[in-house]
């Protein structure tokens, strides 16, 4: 019996050991990929700025709402700000941002004032707007807002782990 379990444990151990480096590699890849993309974006922006003058109106982009993050299930900090460009497009930007890493973590707008009615998880009938997967658990990042969202209604930015229905952290938006 002992030998049998040893074999099982050995295989299990190998499987875990095998999984970790591959996951690490995958993440490293993701990281360098996204960094490349950002560089490209920045280059693109510089390019645009040099080529055209139509970057100028963007100077008038306005911060509409802002709030600071506080941790719920995991410690979370930083600032969430909604900007509006002159073209009317709105973008959520996270700055000084930090939360814990996790599986299947998303950025969502929740139709509550600071997700107060349900502290650590989202109840099924809470209206929410998906903004996409969390790009990174640290650092500055932007998320486009779908058009026609009423930000008077969706007043909370939530870092939400779909898999475990856990709110890592939330920020209540207030008029800037």
């Amino acid at each position, binding site marked *: *019996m*002992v*030998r*049998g*379990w040893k*074999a*099982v444990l050995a*295989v*299990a151990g190998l*499987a*875990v050991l095998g*999984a*970790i480096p591959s*996951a*690490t590699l995958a*993440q490293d890849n*993701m*990281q360098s990929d*996204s*960094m490349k993309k*950002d560089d490209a*974006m*920045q280059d693109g*922006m510089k390019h645009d*700025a040099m080529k055209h003058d139509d*970057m100028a109106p*963007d*100077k008038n*982009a306005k*911060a509409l709402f*802002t709030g*600071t993050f506080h941790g719920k299930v995991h410690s979370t900090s930083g*600032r969430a*700000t909604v*900007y509006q*460009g002159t073209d009317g497009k709105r*973008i959520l*930007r996270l*700055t*000084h941002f930090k939360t*814990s*890493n*996790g*599986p299947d973590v998303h950025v969502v707008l929740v139709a509550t004032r600071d997700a107060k009615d349900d502290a650590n998880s989202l109840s099924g009938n809470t209206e929410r707007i998906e903004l996409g997967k969390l*790009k*990174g*658990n*640290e*650092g*500055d*990042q*932007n998320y486009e807002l779908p058009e026609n969202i009423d930000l008077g209604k969706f007043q909370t930015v939530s870092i939400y782990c779909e*898999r475990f229905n856990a709110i890592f952290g939330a920020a209540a938006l*207030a*008029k*800037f």
Partner: protein
Amino acid sequence: MNTNQRSWISRNKWIFAVIALPVLAVAWWEFRPEKLFINEKVSEAAPFAARGEAQPVYTGVLEGKAHPTSGRATIYQSPDGKNYLRLSDFATSNGPDVHVVLLKAVEKALGGVAVTGELDKVELGSLKGNQGDQNYDLPAATDLNKYQTVAIYCERFHVIFGTSQLEKF
């Protein structure tokens, strides 16, 4: 009996192994325990490049103390390095000799409404109006790492109308 069991398990150890693998794989995918130790850091550029304009560096929401007070207090930094405080959507009650001051967050006076004794403050000037958007220049030497609380302060009666805890923008 015992020997029988042992031999049965050791004979079938590969079956256990084959079952254990996908179970472990699913468990790993579910919990991703390695993420506890691995950070994904990103650094996207601001979507709208604001060049040659004052940038917000600290901001906070105003809250009433002695009198209902609302709005936002934001400290902007101009490209030339000068800082100024801007109150927006601002409303408080009118009063005599009301000033805008910066206090330390640890200031004892913030525990109550009336101020007794000396107040360690950075004076920004008389309140220009009890409603509306307004700007106040900050003295060049102001240490914003220390003075992070905006207070609407009535000098005559030593009463704090409202405060705002500034946080990094």
